[in-house]
């Protein structure tokens, strides 16, 4: 029986590798659900990289495996291998092809980043000025965030790739601190411990850190920007899927970095408006101040009326309480 010609085998291998890589690129299922306008951009980009990576992986690992077995030393053979020192044409090819691939990926990266809003001017949107109705507890912190926010050097991302200076539909100042997230809505004035956004509307977050560096990450949005003290990171996005998604702190911020979580609730415009109203009422009507000596009340008694408005959930407190 005749040997199958090497070139035919190589062609078949090439076709198989291409097909497998394309399939893996489309069906890898490695990423969570998509809930923002930017998520599909990132995922498609990633899938292309997975395709290319799979192909390269199969080719190189395949070569390593085949060569290691095919060219093993046979028993008793003490002779050397072939004195091949190089092959200029081959070396050019395997330098040129990766160069083309990486340049291609580079150009594609710039394109994706631009579509994600990475080049639109940040800090150019009119911050709607706000009055000073603020929750008693969070007032000093919010004041800090507010006063600093407009003056800080600004970085970040926004969805609007055309550089449109139309202000976002919802603007929230996000303050990160050990180990909680505070969301200060500008219109109307609300402070909350979790982020609510209406689906399909442009949301702008102005993220800063209060004490150490934190990082605001929603895996389902594929978006992350650091919360830096002394700087403002703008993040604009449009949420495209109803649901509740985790907000994960993604920069080491201390012993309880892993517990620093909140959530973003993507809801209908009506539900969002209702939530705003409820929160406003709760903040506008604080409990009547009676001249009680607070020293006589325990911490939980004192804080009880405020805890619900700030959006603090008992599970968030557990790790803080565990640590003396």
């Amino acid at each position: 029986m005749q040997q199958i010609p090497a070139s035919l085998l190589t062609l078949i291998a090439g076709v198989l590798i291409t097909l497998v890589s394309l399939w893996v690129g489309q069906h890898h299922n490695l990423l969570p659900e998509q809930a923002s306008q930017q998520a599909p951009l990132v995922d498609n980009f990633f899938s292309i990289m997975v395709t290319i990576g799979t192909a390269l992986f199969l080719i190189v690992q395949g070569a390593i495996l085949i060569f290691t077995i095919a060219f093993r030393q046979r028993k008793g053979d003490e002779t050397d291998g072939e004195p091949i020192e190089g092959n200029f044409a081959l070396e050019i090819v395997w330098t040129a092809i990766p160069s083309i691939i990486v340049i291609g990926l580079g150009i594609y990266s710039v394109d994706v980043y631009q579509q994600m809003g990475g080049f639109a001017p940040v800090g150019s949107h009119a911050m709607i000025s706000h009055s000073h109705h603020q929750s008693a507890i969070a007032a000093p912190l919010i004041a800090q965030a507010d006063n600093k926010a407009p003056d800080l050097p600004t970085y970040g991302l926004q969805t609007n790739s055309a550089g449109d200076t139309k202000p976002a539909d919802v603007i929230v100042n996000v303050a990160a601190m050990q180990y909680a997230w505070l969301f200060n809505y500008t219109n109307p004035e609300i402070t909350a411990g979790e982020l609510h956004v209406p689906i399909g509307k442009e949301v702008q977050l102005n993220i800063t850190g209060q004490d150490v560096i934190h990082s605001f990450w929603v895996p389902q949005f594929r978006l992350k920007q650091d919360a830096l003290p002394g700087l403002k990171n703008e993040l604009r996005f449009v949420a495209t899927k109803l649901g509740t998604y985790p907000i994960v702190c993604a920069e080491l911020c201390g012993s309880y970095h892993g517990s620093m979580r909140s959530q973003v609730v993507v809801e209908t415009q009506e539900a969002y408006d209702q939530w705003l109203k409820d929160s406003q009422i709760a903040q506008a009507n604080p409990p009547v101040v009676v001249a009680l000596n607070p020293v006589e009340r325990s911490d939980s008694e004192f804080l009880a009326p405020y805890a619900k408005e700030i959006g603090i959930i008992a599970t968030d407190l557990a790790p803080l309480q565990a640590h003396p």
Partner: protein
Amino acid sequence: MTQADEKQQIAIDATMQSSEHQAWKWYQYFTFNTDHKVIGIQYLVTAFFFYLIGGLMAVAVRMELATPDPDLLDPSLYNAFMTNHGTIMIFLWIVPSAIGGFGNFLIPLMVGARDMAFPKLNAIAFWLNPLAGGLLLLSFLFGGSQSGWTAYPPLSQVTAPIAQSIWILMIALVGTSSILGSLNFVVTILWMKVPSMRWDQLPLFCWAILATSVLALLSTPVLTIGLVLLLFDINFGTSFYKPDAGGNVVLYQHLFWFYSHPAVYLMILPIFGIMSEVIPVHARKPIFGYKAIAYSSLAICLVGLFVWVHHMFTSGTPGWMRMFFTISTLLVAVPTGVKIFGWVATLWAGKIRYTSAMLFAIGLLSMFVMGGLGGVTLGTAPFDLHVHDTYYVVGHFHYVLFGGSVFGIYSGIYHWFPKMTGKLLNEPLGRVHFGLTFIGTHLTFLPMHYLGLQGMPRRVAMYDPQFQSVNQLCTIGAFILGASVIPFTINIVWSWIKGVPAGDNPWNALTLEWTTSSPPLIENWEELPVVTHSPYEYGRDRIKADSVATQAG
């Protein structure tokens, strides 16, 4: 000659004449010894000791991570272990063994010199390392530094300040050691090569160490400043990184990463050099593409100085900067690819021996491809926004640092242990070591990519319970890796004392270190070698390397 030189020459002549001084006594390996071979071994043994300590910290971390709650360790202690695991592995294991260990032992031998250019400086550079390591362990009395090996302010300004300050001093010491060592390598390679060796006959390991040393000289001082400013912020009331007083936290990140990105090339370039030496010998084939591999080391050195902002894509960096550094990061992958393809092509038409050295080298090839592909994805800003600071990154860098650097160090030890000690290592035990390490590495670090993509951040003692089952897989893998050092350590100790004598050239290799005894004479050779061929000329009807004849008449 200066007086110092004269004294040294007299000492050498005396040594050469007395027959019992052809080798160092065992206790002389524990002293301030200026012989580059002793220093090299001192580096390797000390570094291995710290590898075990750093490894124990990793096991503690993985044990905690087997469950989602912080139920094993106090979270501050967890952060201290996590921080110092990284710090030790980088500064007290990989850098000292790859550069200080292999570099010092091999460079003079490979270029045909009797020692490095500045032997006393060399010894000083070594002894800074155990001192630094001792300091780091001392810092645990003050809680240990807990802000990650990256030590970002403001967290590092306010967490365990005394331990953090000790940590900074420790880095300053190893940084100084690194600079002094690099100085020695640059001068030795460029000016002390034996005259009969042409530049295109210089072994690739030497090119690798040259590129590494240049990189270290240019980047380490910037880290020094970044950390000195942090030290002053913590202890002397300055505000370089305090935004409330005019400082800037992103400044630290620039200063830190300007060094720390090249640092990863410091940890892999010497390893690539080892690969270029081991593979031709154990495949009995010339290295494929000598010039390309030499040039690619220099290219990585150069381009590698301009990619650091890819660690800061989510930080305070403008869009244009993120794009520039995306492109530069993608470009630096090309010279590395050239090397990988060159080594794979070296295997083609070879006569491959499955020695432990070769198994680890081939394992490295395989692991590095995976780590490198992951790295390319991380270098693109749009995708990095999702995976930055997640377990995807942890998976990536452990593939290139463990699957890359550590595999390479193991390969180098199996290859040169006979030359260093005069004894052969036990091969079957080496294969067991390889098998455990290979499986352990994949099991521990492959699932981490999935964890990061799905939403698990890094540097956490507690995590979302949905990630528990995958974390348990990683923990099992970590235990396998922990176990894998046992056959290796037994092999080293047993073989050093009672191993089969190796002879001058057990692998029939062609570089100059194999032309002298095992272990080499203190002065390396009685008469300096004369080079008549390239170090990779396998396949030209030579069965025994010693027929090449490199002794002068």
